[in-house]
């Protein structure tokens, strides 16, 4: 009995551990800044950051909508091009031989380093941001999709073929469902990277978006606004990640039953 109660007690503490730690950090931050005599220009308190979030809410939302569009468009393009490309790599051996090693090699290029070039070629509008979000999220999608498709046990293919399945049915009944956990693993990495891509794109050259807002805040020594924007960018990243995770839960039927 006592043991059982203690276990319930432990799980209660475990659930609260992370929020409690976060709250503690915020309180220490709030208290330590005035005590240490640090200027609010250097390190604003959580309270003043929160205040900026409220007062500049309409501005934030407007910039957020631009950035969100860039992220989603870049990620969507990466899915639309990456998944078919992965299928081609999987099904067509000469293509795999010709293209896949190159793609793996290209993956080592830090995509962010291409940002200034993209501005040269594509200008100051949507295009370079979407391109960067696309480039940075494209490779994880292709590679995780190929790996997912290749991971399938040969026996399962033989099983459905012995039932008379054609390749089309083999794909939809076995290959695709078996690959989905890996595919969504790639999607989740990719959506987080796409946010980074879009923000970097805005740092390099932009007239709007959350990255642009940060540059503006920097120029005006408005550190509280800068921090507030960081919060919004983080929330955007987490929100998009959870949307992908939600679709995954709906699609990858009972993933926890996998092992």
């Amino acid at each position, binding site marked *: 009995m006592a043991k059982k109660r203690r276990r319930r007690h432990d799980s209660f503490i475990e659930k609260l551990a992370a929020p409690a730690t976060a709250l503690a950090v915020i309180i220490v931050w709030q208290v330590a800044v005035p005590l240490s005599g640090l200027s609010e220009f250097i390190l604003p308190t959580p309270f003043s950051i929160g205040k900026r979030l409220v007062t500049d809410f309409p501005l934030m939302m407007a910039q957020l909508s631009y950035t969100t569009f860039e992220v989603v468009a870049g990620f969507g393009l990466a899915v639309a091009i990456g998944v078919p490309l992965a299928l081609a790599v999987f099904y067509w051996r000469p293509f795999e031989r010709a293209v896949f090693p190159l793609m793996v090699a290209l993956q080592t290029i830090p995509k962010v380093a291409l940002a200034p070039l993209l501005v040269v070629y594509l200008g100051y509008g949507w295009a370079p941001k979407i391109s960067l979000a696309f480039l940075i999220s494209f490779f994880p999608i292709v590679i995780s999709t190929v790996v997912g498709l290749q991971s399938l046990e040969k026996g399962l293919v*033989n099983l459905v073929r*012995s039932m*008379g399945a054609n390749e089309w049915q083999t794909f939809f*009944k076995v290959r695709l*469902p078996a690959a989905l956990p890996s595919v969504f693993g790639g999607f989740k990495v990719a959506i987080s990277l796409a946010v980074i891509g879009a923000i970097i794109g805005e740092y390099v050259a932009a007239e709007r978006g959350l990255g642009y807002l940060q540059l503006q805040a920097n120029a005006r020594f408005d550190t509280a606004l800068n921090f507030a924007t960081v919060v919004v960018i983080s929330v955007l990243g987490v929100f998009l990640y959870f949307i992908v995770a939600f679709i995954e839960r709906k699609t990858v039927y009972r993933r926890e*039953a996998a092992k």
Partner: protein
Amino acid sequence: MSMLASGRGAAVRIVDLSKIYETRESEDVQALDRIDLDIEPGSFVAVVGPSGCGKSTLLSLLASLIPPSTGRIFIDGQEIRRPHPKVGVVFQSDMLLYWRNVLDNILLPIEIKHFNRGHYKEKAATLLSQVGLDGFENKWPSELSGGMRQRVAICRALIQEPGLLLMDEPFGALDALTREQMIMDLQAMWSRVGNTVLFITHGIDEAVFLADRVIVMSPRPGRIDLDLAIEMPRPRQWTEVHESPKFRHYVRRIREIFEAKGVLVER
């Protein structure tokens, strides 16, 4: 329509069947060398032999998963070139799709053939209860033990009343007790269904216990060394059969082949 009433097995005729695996690096492997075999409808035939004797190749050929190098296979008088609709296969591992529950796994062949799922739901339930898994339709494969999973795999193979059931070492991955139970259950199920069974195994005891006929094969190249009729009355009781002189006589005859071929060596 019921599987209890169907009771018809398919006739299998294998003529001059060879399979050569071509390998890029080393010499080609002759897995099967000119096999001839006639299987009567409704009989239970076990194929025993050591690894590499071509018994799994024989099964893959019957399931049309690979093409023969020479020779022909007839099922009910019709030469097969693609997976035959009247053939069901049970593999060594259960091969259940983990993203489908038990019912959806059993109905997989029905979906692939574009039959109406609804018509087969009741039959799936009947099959499940016959293997002692009453009401397991909505369980997930991960919730089942190894023996239960293989039972589900057997239900999946039986859902469309296959005239020929191919079993590739189906109990090889199970523990000894579960395996014993499965062997007895398979006998009971087969006596109800009455289809033709080709049962591949490396267990001499289970082959003799289950089969009407044991085909003994040896490797390099895969050939039939002995075609042994097992004449013991059915239903066969586990202890009674295993203690009978006739059973031991059959087992010894098969072992003698393996000893003569150097597959089994006394030290």
